[in-house]
């Protein structure tokens, strides 16, 4: 396959995924627009029946029946997916919420952190300590500290409307806080790297036309540095999408949590975890695709380049 056909296939698959995902969420939030909330859009039963019928038809035909058996298995998997995808959709929604909020809030914290790390004196050490401590300890341990050791969830419990309607409940917000703190530390490092990659002459030139140091950083250095950091953000989004699964351990009903709950109900661990993996993959690919587009949109000739995230997904 050529590059462009691969891309077309990917975009097509993602479009189907998001059409389904969007319809699913709308349907379930508004009490069943198309079908009853949480019910499959199409009845999986006929597909399952077809699978069983095929399998019975070729039972005992040996090698000849093999290919038909594969079709039967495929149909079986399809009906399985149709049955359980609605359960996973609600979890996937929380995964998306966690990822997006943490990335955005993380960025808001990361910009001053990075500036402090590069340009600060006392603040340099504060930022450095924060960044290194967060990056040097496991995310799950951080979540446990927030959830079990600090009164965060009690505070969130006092906030009105949390957990009602489509507003997620308090554990989700504890997770958002955790992921935000974690992501801020990583994003600050990416931005620091980009700042240091920018010619110091840029700041000198900014000062020479009369901008203050802070203005020079704000209007000249940062706009370039943030563009340089885009490839790292792609990785950050991918990372958060995957690691948001850890929120399951502080009771957040995200994608992994949903798959595990369904698996404990029917013991089809492999099928459900693989299905979850496929949904994660769709989310990860969406993230990289969107960031590719963002990168094209904000590109300035001669400014940009490749950075590294905490791990590159591809």
């Amino acid at each position, binding site marked *: 396959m050529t590059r462009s056909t691969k891309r077309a296939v990917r975009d097509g698959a993602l479009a189907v995924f998001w059409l389904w995902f969007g319809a699913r969420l709308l349907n379930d939030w508004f009490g069943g627009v198309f079908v009853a909330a949480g019910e499959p859009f199409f009845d999986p039963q006929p597909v399952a029946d077809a699978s069983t019928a095929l399998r019975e038809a070729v039972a005992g035909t040996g090698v000849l029946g093999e290919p038909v058996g594969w079709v039967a298995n495929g149909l079986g998997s399809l009906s399985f997916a149709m049955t359980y995808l609605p359960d996973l959709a609600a979890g996937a929604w929380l995964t998306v919420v966690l990822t997006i909020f943490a990335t955005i809030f993380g960025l808001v914290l990361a910009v001053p952190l990075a500036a402090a790390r590069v340009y600060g004196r006392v603040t340099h050490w504060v930022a450095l300590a924060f960044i*290194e*401590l967060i*990056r*040097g*300890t*496991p*995310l*799950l*341990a*951080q979540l*446990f*500290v927030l959830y*079990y*050791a*600090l009164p965060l969830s009690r505070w969130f419990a006092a906030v009105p409307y949390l957990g009602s309607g489509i507003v997620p409940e308090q554990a989700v917000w504890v997770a958002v806080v955790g992921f935000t703190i974690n992501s801020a530390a990583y994003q600050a490092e990416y931005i620091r790297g980009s700042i240091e990659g920018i010619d110091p002459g840029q700041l000198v030139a900014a000062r020479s036309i009369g901008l203050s140091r802070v203005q020079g950083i704000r209007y000249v250095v940062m706009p370039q540095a943030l563009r340089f950091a885009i490839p790292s953000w792609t990785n950050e989004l*991918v990372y958060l*999408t*995957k*690691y948001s*699964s*850890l929120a*399951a*351990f502080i009771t957040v009903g995200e994608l*992994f949590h949903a*798959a*595990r709950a369904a*698996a404990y109900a029917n013991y089809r*661990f*492999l099928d459900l*975890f*693989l299905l*979850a*993996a496929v949904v*994660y*993959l769709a989310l*990860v*690919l969406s993230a990289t695709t969107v960031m590719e587009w963002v990168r094209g949109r904000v590109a300035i000739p001669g400014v940009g380049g490749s950075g590294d995230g*905490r*791990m*590159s*997904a*591809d």
Partner: protein
Amino acid sequence: MDSVFLSAQPLGDWEFVWQQRQFFVEGTRIAVELTFYSIVLGFILGLPAGVVEAYGGPYSKGVVRPVGVAIRGTPILVIIAITYFAFGVSPAFLAATLALGVRSAAYQSQIFRGAIESVEGGQMEAARAVGLSKLDAIRHVVLPQALRRSVPGFQNEFTIVLKDTSIAYAIGVAELLKRSYDLFSLQTSAALEVFLAASLIYFVLTFSVNRGIEVLNDRVAIPGGNY
């Protein structure tokens, strides 16, 4: 270990952590072992995968690349869960090692591929011009340079694997975080102390590994510069 469950009188929370230090030491040992075996497994699988990605034909690449993309796109938690619950690998320590190792291989292959591709094409060409076969050229000329260049990439990889051993908590491996959680359920008032103590140990470990790799990097450097 059993002493934990016998301690009856209430203790101060830091005192409690100190009293249970043996528990942390054991957890640390398991976390370190898990990291070590996973990285080794990742190396054994990841190096050939990286070579294939750099030099393979359309078929071998066509297999290795998508598998890598799928593994790198899947949360480690899901990989661990599939290994343990779905494939039924047991004991849990083995399942965690396999899961972390295979995932690490997927990332190490990228470290190696990148390092191989960073070795100038002229090196391969010169080796071939002397009469070395392609395999010999890879083995004796490209890889020795690529491996040196991949050392810094291992800082990141080690840190990630070390921290992610904590996720083996999900399948009950008695590593550091799992043990901390057990202690916390024993004396819930000590939550902050217990989890901070565990975090501190992780931090010391990642910090030491990073410094260690920097030292290693200097040790293996080619005189006059790697590049």
